[in-house]
């Protein structure tokens, strides 16, 4: 795909499809710019105003109240809302779209920020009742109906699965977590950190099954799930199943419009599709072959796209490696880079089990390329910056693992 210049004339109508975190952030960013498109319409599938999806976990765990989820509403001047509507058709030639509510809109520019949905495994019984994901307010309401003593199976040992499992456990639910990999958070944590995490969660009352592959779900007479069966034949009785094993970008509109779609809707460095009038943003977009599911790179996309939509020449967005900072079950985790080092990458570890403190650094060619911090993550951002800068470590390597400050004040060597 050839890159666009990023220039677009003003005085046009911008339509943003999606009122999730990406769409909301984009609109908020535009409203702060005087040279924004004069007319902006937002179409959102959910009927509610935009909310912070990241906070669903603490809400489920009972740590915050519902109001804390709401994202601040942007200034409304020149802004038009179509909430609870789903786009059903796009005519790129006529630059027109339709919704399931019969709305017909002409656009000069169109932004697709349709997000993603849980990836549901293709297996018998997946359509039974009380099987769902954990992404939306609606999902959360469903989970909050679980009461103490009920049983739940959470499928997926990544961040979302762990948060759902912990949230439910805190509500008194007996939770079994199924992780297909041999360790939790296998994309972020190394073996040691993952096993420490598993031990801690187990001590807190969660049942964690790693290397567990789901074979099918079994239902009762009411069509509700009542058990899951694993590939090894084990059968676990349950009252609900939460699927948190990856996400699938919502690319249907892209296909509908005849755009290039791979994993996500393909865009260039200016978040522009093959059609210069259409952009894609956030989890539904695929930039340089990569889709993202974390907030930080999406915020960077928003800044680039906002410039483009205001007619500013702007450097192309380059997907940057990002760091994961999480708090799971009260344990701080921070990681970036590969979880499993490639050949030739050197690994340094530090462990203080009595203090719940672990870290591993990956070093290639005397440069920091990855880190896992478990317990105390305060050095995480500094280490990430060090990796981003590509600084040669030299003597600082010796003590870097004991504190990021050592990288900026390396050992003085005898001259």
């Amino acid at each position, binding site marked *: 795909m050839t890159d666009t210049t990023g220039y677009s004339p003003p005085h046009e109508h911008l339509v943003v499809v999606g009122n999730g975190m990406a769409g909301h952030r984009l609109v908020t960013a535009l409203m702060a710019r005087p040279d924004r498109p004069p007319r902006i319409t937002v179409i959102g599938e959910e009927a509610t105003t935009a909310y912070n999806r990241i906070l669903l976990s603490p809400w489920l765990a009972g740590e915050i109240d519902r109001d804390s989820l709401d994202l601040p509403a942007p200034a409304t001047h020149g802004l038009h809302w179509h909430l609870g509507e789903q786009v059903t058709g796009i005519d790129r030639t006529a630059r027109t779209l339709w919704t399931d509510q019969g709305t017909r809109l002409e656009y000069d520019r169109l932004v697709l920020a349709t997000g993603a949905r849980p990836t549901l495994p293709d297996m018998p019984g997946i359509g039974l009742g009380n099987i769902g994901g954990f992404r939306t307010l609606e999902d959360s309401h469903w989970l909050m109906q679980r009461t103490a003593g009920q049983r739940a199976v959470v499928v997926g040992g990544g961040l979302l699965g762990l948060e759902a499992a912990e949230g439910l456990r805190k509500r008194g639910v007996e939770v079994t977590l199924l992780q297909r990999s041999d360790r939790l958070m296998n994309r972020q944590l190394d073996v040691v950190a993952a096993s420490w995490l598993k031990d801690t969660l187990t001590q807190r009352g969660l049942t964690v099954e790693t290397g567990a592959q789901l074979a099918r779900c079994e239902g009762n007479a009411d069509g509700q799930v009542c058990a899951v069966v694993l590939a090894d034949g084990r059968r676990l009785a349950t009252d609900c199943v939460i699927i948190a094993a990856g996400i699938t970008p919502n690319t249907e509109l892209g296909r509908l419009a005849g755009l290039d779609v791979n994993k996500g809707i393909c865009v260039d460095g200016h978040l522009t599709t093959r059609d210069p009038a259409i952009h894609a943003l956030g989890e539904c977009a695929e930039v340089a072959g990569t889709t993202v599911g974390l907030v930080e790179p999406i915020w960077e996309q928003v800044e680039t796209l906002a410039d483009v939509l205001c007619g500013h020449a702007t450097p192309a967005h380059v997907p940057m490696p990002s760091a994961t900072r999480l708090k799971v079950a009260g344990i701080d985790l921070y990681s970036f880079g590969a979880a499993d080092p490639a050949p030739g990458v*050197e*690994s*340094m570890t530090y462990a203080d089990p009595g*203090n719940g403190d672990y870290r591993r650094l990956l070093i290639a060619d005397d440069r920091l390329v990855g880190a896992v911090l478990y317990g*105390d993550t305060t050095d995480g951002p500094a280490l990430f910056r060090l990796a981003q800068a590509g600084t040669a470590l030299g003597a600082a390597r010796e003590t870097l693992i004991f504190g990021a400050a050592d990288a900026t004040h390396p050992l003085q060597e005898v001259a």
Partner: protein
Amino acid sequence: MSDARAVHPPSVHNAAPCQAATTCPYCGVGCGVSATLEQGRITAVAGDTTHPANQGRLCVKGSALHETLGHSGRLLHPRVDGAITSWDDALDQVAARLSATRSTHGNHAVAAYLSGQLLTEDYYVANKLFKGFLGTPHVDTNSRLCMASAVAAYKRAFGADAVPCCYDDLEEAELVVLVGSNLAWNHPVLYQRLKTARSRNPLMRIVVIDPRVTDSCDIADLYLGIAPGSDARLFNGLLAFMHRTGRMDQVYLDRHAEGLEEALAAACEADVTLDAIAADCDIDPERLETFYYWFTSQLHVVTLYSQGINQSSSGTDKCQAIINCHLAGGRIGLPGAGPFSITGQPNAMGGREVGGLANQLAAHMDYHTPQALERVTRFWQTGTLVPTLPDGPGLKAVALFEAIERGEVQAVWIMATNPVVSLPDADRVKRILAACPLVIVSDCMANAEVLDVADIILPATGWSEKDGTVTNSERCISRQRGLTEPPGEARHDWWIMTEVARRLGFAQAFDYDHPATIFAEHARLSGLDNDPGAAGWRVFDISGLASLTRDEYDALAPIQWPVNARAPAGTARLFTDGHFPTPSGRARLMPVRPCGPQQALNATYALRLNTGRVRDQWHTMTRTARSARLMNHRAEPFVDLHPEDAEAHGIKDRQLVELTGICGRFRGRARIARAQRRGEVFVPMHWNEAFSGRARANALLAPYVDPISGQPESKHGAVNVRPLTHGREATLMVTTELAEDLQPVRDCAYWARIPMCHAVRWQLAEDSDMAERDWLAWIEDTLPGPLSQWSVDDARGRLRASSLQDGRLNWWLMVGPPDTLPSPLWLDALFGEASSEGISMAVRRRILAGRDSDARDDGPIICSCHQVGQYAIQAAIRDGDHSIEALGARLACGTQCGSCQPELKALLEEERDHVRL
């Protein structure tokens, strides 16, 4: 039996803090120390402002004296054949076994090996007991290793073992020549006096003659980096130059000296042109001429020499070559003039005063001195008790141990010295003593290696407990006072020998109840038949002190001998009238024919080995290693070598290396030093098996001695060097309490034990790669306490681990390349943290880092007094402190004892060069 503890002054028991004057036990300067006593303990020390030697100054070792006390590590009980026993039994055993040896093998099968650490009173009793009553001449001392050559030369030239100069002469001289003496490190207070004098007198010049560029060069106007052993050639050349340029003092020679012609002829046997001498000494001819010119153009010249001259197979001649020049120029007997031998030990001179060397009899009388045998027999009344007084000189140190090896000597009593470390071919000495039928050792420290080969061990008192007198290098007798209670059952050496003498039936001759009575007897003997001009005149005469009451003895102020009716207030300078105690009354110039070291270099052993002291240690470290701050200057045994030699042998700075000599091996850390001449290496003589596995300098030296003085050739070994390890090393620190029961690493190819304040640190290395060891298994097998933290860097072969228990650090281990060891001081402090909360979370991960995140690594300690490290000093220099004064104002370094000032200056110059580059 009388109790040795009864001799202490009553002030010991005073509860209120009080000051007491005593004398430092380290080097030959003999500084006065003012000790603060609280509750029977010495809590602080300061220089005694009234003592003439130091006038209030103290060096870093002296300043740390109170840190080296305490009962841990002391010998507390007598032992016979390994078992603790009572004093009565031990003394009975000593007496019985000595008697048995004498009756079976004869009197000459018994020997004593003494020490310059003994007080004069101890020395006197030992000499009297062995020579006078056990009937053996084999009484020698470790002073033999230190300045026997200087003694032999003085006796040959002056007819007496008499240092003509005093310390004030260093301040009054116009030219001071330091030869074979690193005064800055080994006699720091004298160095400070000299430095101050030079700063006050712009006309004063200082010449340093030494193969190494030492810290003493800091004040040198001229430095001659001569080839090792070429000193006699240099001074013979000076004599010839004086003759050639008409600079001799013919009047003095005519009136007061003899032997010039023979001495001059011997000097002129070689080519005495400046170029020829400069070539032989490997120095620049112009510098040589400058030195000769300065020497001949100044009247007030002091040549100060020490072990660099003495420890040679021709040491007596080297001293003589110096004395020849002083006599030829009349540069003696004047203020600020004379050949001045500085001794290494605090009481080397006191030992000689009583006759405690094998070639002496008593009180500066030798066996061959006319009427001496008769006089001493009469005085000791030994004829009535034992009919045999020995008839000739005994065996000198090296020869004594050879006689033990041959079985000629069957019993030896070793007091206050560690010959298995300090004698050349030290490994052999250890084997010899192990095979000797009876080895009795009196010592105060439990870690002296000689104890390993002892049959009977007697716990002796140490500094601050011992009570008596010492004589420093300027003939000044000072009181070393008993201020604290001895630990356990430790007893004074004189008391121990007196008790043995009683058991042998000599009670009447050893009826001593206090050191004062011993001193009075010694003083009387010195004055017996001793008149100037008459036959039998000895310069050493302290008869003026023979009638001191005990109170007067206790209060004795420092005084220089001779002290007699003609000089009741003592004598600062000798031979001021040009009259010498030789048969002719004249001083003797002697012919000197320079000869090189006996230990020859060859293809296998191509490097010249020099040995010596470091600034902050003393002898075999039994005392100084108890002060953590004294360990920080040089924590490990080391080898100084020239950069080009290092490169040629593939050695990097701080790498571990092994020296091999014909007799043994030495392992230590390489220090690449431009101060070394090419082809020469330097090692410290302090380390021994209590502190490192193979780091005894004397194991490298062949036992060649000077034929006259019997002093070993300790400065001229022949060695080879090779890198010892290429891989990882380990640093282990363990709390002092846990370390007592821990012998973690004696099987390592290299180990060094470094006592710190709260922990003991070991440096460990293997020939093979340390990283190959299964360290986690080793930790489990070897170290106490849980494994609490660890970090691993496999690519670098590095591991760090620690053990924490109840909030305190048990141990800390690091395995890895040696080049980035953290400074251990921060960790040492952490080992000492004993708060109830224990170590804070913020600090916890820093434990393995080995330093605080904000704390700088200060680097090797330069200023021991104020514990200031090299990096901190370098940073201050870069920050604009461009003088020693500025550094002192900011960091306090160099402001107390001043002995680090040469190193500060070197750092200033280094940084200056750095900026220029």
